C-alpha cells in the first residue's frame, strides 16, 4: 500500500490560536445507577480556529460522544461547550438546530446523503434549509474539488463510497461553517478514496482557514491533522502537535491499543 502522504509539510505559520470550539468540564453519563456508563469524565479541551484536529483513542473511549456533544447533536450531563462565544448547553432544541444548520458542518462515517436527493441537491441542502443562496464562485470551487465531473446529478446509490464521502465533505464546507466535524469519515473507504477525502478536508483548512475536527482510528488519517487529541476512558490522555503516522502509532500503543 503506497504511503498516501510521503513528504510531511510543516504547518504554515498561523495566527495566535483562537478557540473555535471548547469543552469545559464536559461530563456525559449514559444510563442510571448500576448500569451507568461515564462516556466523558470532566473533559477540558480546546480546538483552534483554522486548524485540523484529530481525536483518537481506543474504541469506547468516548470520541463519538465528545464530538456529538461539541456539535450540539447531544446534550451533556454536566459541563459546558462553547462554539466561539456561544454556550451550547444553554440552547433549546430549535436554537441548537438552527446553530447546527448555520454554523456547523458534518461528515459521518456512513449514511451521509439523503437517498432521494441527487449529489448537487445534497450539497446544497443545508443552505436551502437556511433559505440562503450559495455563493456561486464558492460553489464552483467546492464542486470543482469534488472531482465528480458529470455525476453531480446522480443519486447517492449511483455513486461509489468515496464519491459519496466527497459529496458529504462538499456539503459540509459549502455554508462555510465555524467548524466541520467528521466522525471516522474514511472508516468505510479504501486508502485511495480515504486520501482524497482527507486531502479535501486538509485543503479546506490550509486554503480557506476552515476549522476541522475529525474522529479517526487510522494513524495515517491522523497524520493529515495539525494536532491529535488522545482520549482514553472518557478523559483527555495527551496530545501530539504536527503528528506523523509513527508518532500516532506510538502514542496509541502507550494507550494500550
Amino acid at each position, binding site marked *: 500500500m503506497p504511503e498516501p502522504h510521503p513528504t510531511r509539510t510543516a504547518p504554515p505559520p498561523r495566527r495566535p490560536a483562537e478557540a473555535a470550539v471548547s469543552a469545559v468540564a464536559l461530563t456525559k453519563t449514559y444510563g442510571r445507577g448500576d448500569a451507568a456508563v461515564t462516556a466523558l469524565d470532566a473533559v477540558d479541551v480546546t480546538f483552534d480556529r483554522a486548524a485540523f484536529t484529530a481525536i483518537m483513542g481506543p474504541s469506547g473511549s468516548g470520541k463519538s460522544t465528545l464530538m456529538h456533544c461539541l456539535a450540539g447533536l*447531544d446534550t451533556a450531563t454536566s459541563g459546558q461547550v462553547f462554539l466561539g462565544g456561544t454556550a451550547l448547553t444553554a440552547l433549546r432544541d*430549535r436554537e441548537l*438546530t438552527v446553530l*447546527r444548520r448555520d454554523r456547523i458542518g458534518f461528515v*459521518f462515517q456512513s*449514511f451521509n446523503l*439523503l437517498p432521494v436527493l441527487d449529489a448537487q441537491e445534497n450539497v446544497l*441542502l443545508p443552505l436551502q434549509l437556511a433559505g440562503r443562496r450559495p455563493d456561486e464562485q464558492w460553489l464552483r470551487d467546492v464542486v470543482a474539488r469534488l472531482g465528480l465531473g458529470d455525476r453531480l446529478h446522480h443519486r447517492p446509490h449511483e455513486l461509489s463510497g468515496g464519491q459519496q464521502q466527497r459529496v458529504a465533505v462538499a456539503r459540509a464546507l459549502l455554508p462555510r461553517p465555524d467548524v466541520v466535524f467528521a466522525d471516522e469519515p474514511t472508516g468505510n473507504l479504501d486508502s485511495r478514496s480515504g486520501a482524497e477525502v482527507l486531502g479535501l478536508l486538509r485543503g479546506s483548512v490550509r486554503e480557506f482557514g476552515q476549522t476541522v475536527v475529525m474522529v479517526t482510528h487510522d494513524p495515517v488519517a491522523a497524520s493529515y491533522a495539525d494536532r491529535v487529541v488522545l482520549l482514553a476512558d472518557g478523559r483527555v490522555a495527551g496530545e501530539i502537535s504536527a503528528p506523523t503516522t509513527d508518532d500516532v502509532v506510538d502514542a496509541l500503543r502507550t494507550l494500550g491499543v
Partner: protein
Amino acid sequence: MLTTTLAQVRAHAGRVLASCLAIVIAVGFVVATLCLNASSRASVLDAVGAQYRGSAVVLSETGDRAEGAPDPLAAAATAVAALPGVRATALDRTTPVQLRLPGRSGSSFAVATGLADDPGLRWQRVSAGRLPTGPDEIAVSERTGAGVGTVVTLTPEDLGEVDAVPPAPREVRVVGVVDLRGDPRAGVTGQVFASDADLTTWGAATADLLRVAAAPGADVAALRDAVTAAVPAAEVLTGDEAAAQAAAAFTGDAANLTSVLLVFGAVAVLVAALVIANTFAVLVAQRTRELALLRCVGATSGQVARSVLAEAAVVGVLASAAGVGAGVGLAAAVSALVSRTTSPIPLGAVVVPASAVAVGLVLGTAVTVLAALAPARGATRVAPLAALRPVQPPPVRSRAGALRLALGLVVLVPSAVALVVLSRAGMLTAAVGAGALSFLGVLLLARRLVPAAVSVAGLLVRPLGGVPARLAQGNALRNPRRTAATATALLIGVTLTSAMVVGAASTRATATQALVAGYPTDVVVEGADAVPTDVQGRIAAVPGVAGTSPVTTGEVSGPRETTAGAQGVEASAAGVVRSQQRSPLPRDGEAVLSVSAADTFGVADGGTLPLTGSAGTQELRVRVAPDSEQFLVLTAADLRRLDGAAAVTVVWVRLADAGDRAQERAVDAVTDVVTDSLPSSSVSGVVAERSSYDQLLRTFLLVVTGLLGVAVVIALLGVGNTLALSVVERRQESGLLRALGLTRGQLRAQLAWEALLVAGVAAVLGVVLGSGYGLAGTAAVLSAEAPVVLALPWAQLAGIVAVAAGAGVLASVLPARRAARTSPVAAIAG
C-alpha cells in the same frame, strides 16, 4: 416457525395496528348490516307472525267459492275438532268498519277481527285494559287513537251483499288496547278486536282462517298431515310456516336495503384489502434483511412465505374478532337509535345470527390472508444475499409492470369509450358494466398514473413548501408501488363519493329543467275576476319577487264555430317565464296553439286563423306548439282588439333566485297579498315541488356519502399507516436531516407534505374520475326520462378534495410526531 410468527406479530403489533383497524372497520360494517337485517327480520316475524302464536296448524281457503255456498272453513272446523291431537279450534273472521271517536267530526277506517274463544288461541296482548268479554265491547290498536273507557260509534261497512240489511251504527265501549308494536301494518290502519259473535252481527259471515291448537304432546307435522287429509280443499300450514310466510311479504324491502348496504360493505372490504396488502408489502420490504438472514441460516422460500401468511392469518383472526364485536355493538346502537324514531323498518332487540359472526370472521381472515398473498410471494424472492446488500425498492418498469400497463390500457380505453356511448344511449345495465370495467383499468394503471401525478404535483408545491416539500416529493416517489397502493385505496372512496355528488347534482339539474319546461312560471296568481292594477303592483313589490307580467283572458270564436278562451300575454312575459321550450310566447299578429287547438280549429302550423270577438275580427298567423298545454295564446294587444271585455285575471310571477327557503317565503308573501285583496283567487307555484325534490336528493346524498365515508376513513388509515411505516424505515435519514439543521417543525412539515401529495393526488384523480362516472351514470339513468342536463357542483367537488387532502394531512400527524422525536445522534448511530 409458529413461534417466529407470533414473535413477529408481537414485535410489529404497532405497525400492523392500522391495518387491523381497517379490518375491524370493514368487518364491523358488514357484521352490523347482517345483524340489523336479522334483527329486523326477527322483529317482523315476531309481530306479523303474532297471529299464529299458539296455533299448531292453520287452514286457509283455496280457490273461489260458488255464490251462496256454505262457509267451507266453518264446516272444516267441525271435522278438524274431532281429529285426535286437536285441543281447540278458532275461526278468524274479519270485517271492515268505520270508527267515530267522540268529539271528532269524521270517522276512520279500521279492520275488525274476531277473538278466539279458546284462551290459548288468543294471540292479542293488551297494553292497557283487557280483552272484550261481552257484546259491544271492543279492544283497539293504538292507531285508532281511542283509549280504554271511551265509547265510540262503530259502523260496519256495507259490503254490498244482496238482500243484506244495511248496517246500523252502534255504540261500543273500548275495554282494552292491543299492543301491535313491531308490526309494519299496525301503523297503516286501525284494528278492532271483538267477540266472534259480534263480528258475525257486523256482517262477517265467513271466516278467513281456521286456527288449530294441538293437544299437549301432539306431533305438529303429524297433525298437519291429518288435517290435510281431512280437509283436502284448504291450504294447510303449520303455525310456524304461516308466520314465516306472512313475515316474508313484509321483509322484501328490508332485504333490498340489506343488499344495498352490503354493496357499500364490499367497497369497504375492498379498500381494507388494499390497505392490508400495502401494510404487508411494506413489512416484508422492511424485513428483507431479516428474511434474507433466515434464508442464510437455511429457511426455504416456502417457509418464509408461510411465515408471512401465518402472520397475516393471526392478524386477520384477531382483527376480525374485534370487527365482529364492533359490528354487533354498532347494530345495537343503531337499533337503539331507530327504536326511538318512527322507522319503516321495525327493529326490536338485536339478533346476532351465527352466520353473521361466521361471515365476519371468515371474511376478515380470508381478506387479510389473500391481501398478504402478493407480499408473501415477494418475500420468497428475497435472496439470501440481500442480507448483505442495501435494500433497493423494486423498479416500476419491470416486466410485470409493463404487462400491467398494457393490460390496463387494453381494459380502460375500450370500456371508457363504451361507457360514453352506452350512457348516451341510455343503456343502463351495459353502461354499469363498462363503468366497472373501466375502473378496473384505472386501478391497473394507478401504479403508473399515481407516481406520475405525484411528481407533477410535487413540482407544483415545491415553490410553496421549500426543502420539506422537495424532500416529501422525493420520499413519495421512492417507493412508487407503496405510494400508488396507498393512493388507490383513497381513490376508490373518493371516486365513488364524487360520482354520487355529481350524479345528484345532474339529476337535480335535469329535474329542475324538466320542471321549468313543464311549469315555466314560478308562481301563477289566478283571480276569479279581474286582478286590479294596484294588486298587481303590490304583488310586484313583494320582497323576493323579481318580476311580474299580467295575463289578459278573453273569449274568441274561430272556424268551425268554436268559441274558446284565449290568453293574451304582454311583452314583459318573456322576462318572467323561465322556459319557452314547451309554451313559446306569441309575437303581434301571431297565435300560439296547442295541438288540440289546431285540431279543433282545423288549422296547421304556418296557416292563418281568423278569430272574431265582441270587438272585432282579425286574421292571425298560426304557430302550433306540439308540447304546449295552453289552448290558445295571443299577445294581449291582439286579444284586446278582438274581445272588448278581455281583462287581466292572471298574473305571472318570477321569483328572485335566492334559494328554496327565500323563495318559499316569497310565495307565502304573495299568497298573503292575494288572499287579502282577492279572497277567491288561487296562487300556485312549483317552488314547493322543486324543494321537496331537492330535500329527497340531499337526504339520499347524505346517506350515501356517510356509507362511502367508511371506505374513505379506512383509506385514510392506510395513508397514516404507510407514513408511519415509512417513518420507521427512514429513522436514519430523519436523524441526518435533524443533524444538518432541519427543525422538528420542518420534519413534521415534510411528512405533512408527503401526505398531502399522496392524498391530494388521490383526491383530485378521484374527483375527476368520479365526475366522469357521475355524468355518465346520470346520462344512462335519466336519458330515457328527460333531456339530461349535466351539472358539476364545483364547490362540493372542491370540498371533497379539501376534506380528503386535509384528512390525509391529519393522518400524518402521529407519524410526524414520531419522526420529530428522533434524536439526531440515535439516527446516526444507526
